[in-house]
């Protein structure tokens, strides 16, 4: 009988400890997602130029990270999260390309043109109107130039520049080697500077 009680007690203690650990990891994941979600949304939005779709992609990436990778070390979450998000973005762009081809075949226009960068522009409160206008224009120009980059250069640039991932983390997120990351990033910066010109700076 004592063995039975002892065994059950051990089971309950293990359960309590596991419960505490789970709550801690949930809080940690919550903090991570809260920290990364806004930048991730803007990165997705700049890629696909549609805020609603970008929100859906970010939510998908969050759910997949929580479902499949929550037990991985927190230091791995950022590259893993962006790898999931980049895959979602690529899938979305492929589907959109097919959809656009079909639409063109049926004589309908490209719905990407519906994206209004002014409407989607952030609300820059507390600024003088002319300064706010300049900032919005500069960001719109940057977004437009980024959109013109080849996909891999775009990914490397945004992960390194906007998310602040190092070369190794970017390589994990992009699923390629560190040398490729350096090459894509360097070419992206060079291309953007040429496109935007000196006046942008």
């Amino acid at each position, binding site marked *: 009988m004592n063995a039975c009680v002892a065994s059950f007690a051990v*089971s309950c203690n293990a359960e309590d400890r596991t419960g505490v650990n789970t709550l801690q990891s949930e809080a940690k994941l919550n903090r991570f997602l809260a920290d990364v979600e806004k930048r991730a949304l803007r990165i997705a939005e700049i890629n696909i130029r549609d805020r609603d779709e970008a929100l859906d992609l970010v*939510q998908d990436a*969050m759910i997949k990270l929580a479902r499949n990778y929550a037990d991985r070390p927190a230091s791995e979450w950022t590259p893993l999260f962006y790898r999931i998000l980049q895959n979602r973005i690529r899938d979305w762009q492929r589907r959109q390309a097919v959809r656009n081809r079909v639409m063109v075949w049926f004589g309908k226009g490209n719905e990407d043109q519906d994206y209004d960068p002014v409407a989607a522009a952030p609300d820059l409160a507390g600024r003088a109107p002319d300064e706010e206008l300049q900032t919005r224009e500069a960001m719109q120009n*940057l977004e437009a130039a980024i959109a013109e980059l080849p996909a891999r250069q775009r990914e490397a640039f945004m992960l390194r520049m906007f998310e602040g991932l190092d070369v190794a983390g970017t390589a994990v997120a992009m699923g390629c080697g560190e040398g490729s990351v350096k090459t894509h990033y360097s070419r992206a910066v060079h291309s953007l500077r040429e496109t935007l010109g000196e006046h942008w700076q």
Partner: protein
Amino acid sequence: MNERNDVTAEDEFAEKAKQLFDESVDGLDGETLSRLNRSRHAALAELDKGRAAWIRWAPATGVAAAAVMAVIVWTGVPGVDDLSAPAVVTDMEILLTEDSLEMLEDLEFYSWIEFSEDTDEALEPANNVG
């Protein structure tokens, strides 16, 4: 010299691009932030689902393990001859009683009685013939 200027210009470009991006992140509207918040909680609910499944089965698993342990403790380890221990105890009791020791001393006498009884039983049917 040109290379140094180029690096400086590149740094300035990077700084401005990062600053613009950060401002656009900070300027996200309330509705968007609310949707992000809901998305995050939907993701965290996935953790609860996994944990709920584990917790649902944990008590049953614990009770089952305890029951198996109890059965093992009370019935002994399977594979051991269950009769061997009581049989040894019985033999020892017989050997240690005084009567048994006396019986051992007259063992030849009891053997002779048993033999003669068997012989009588064997001869009886032959004697009854006729």
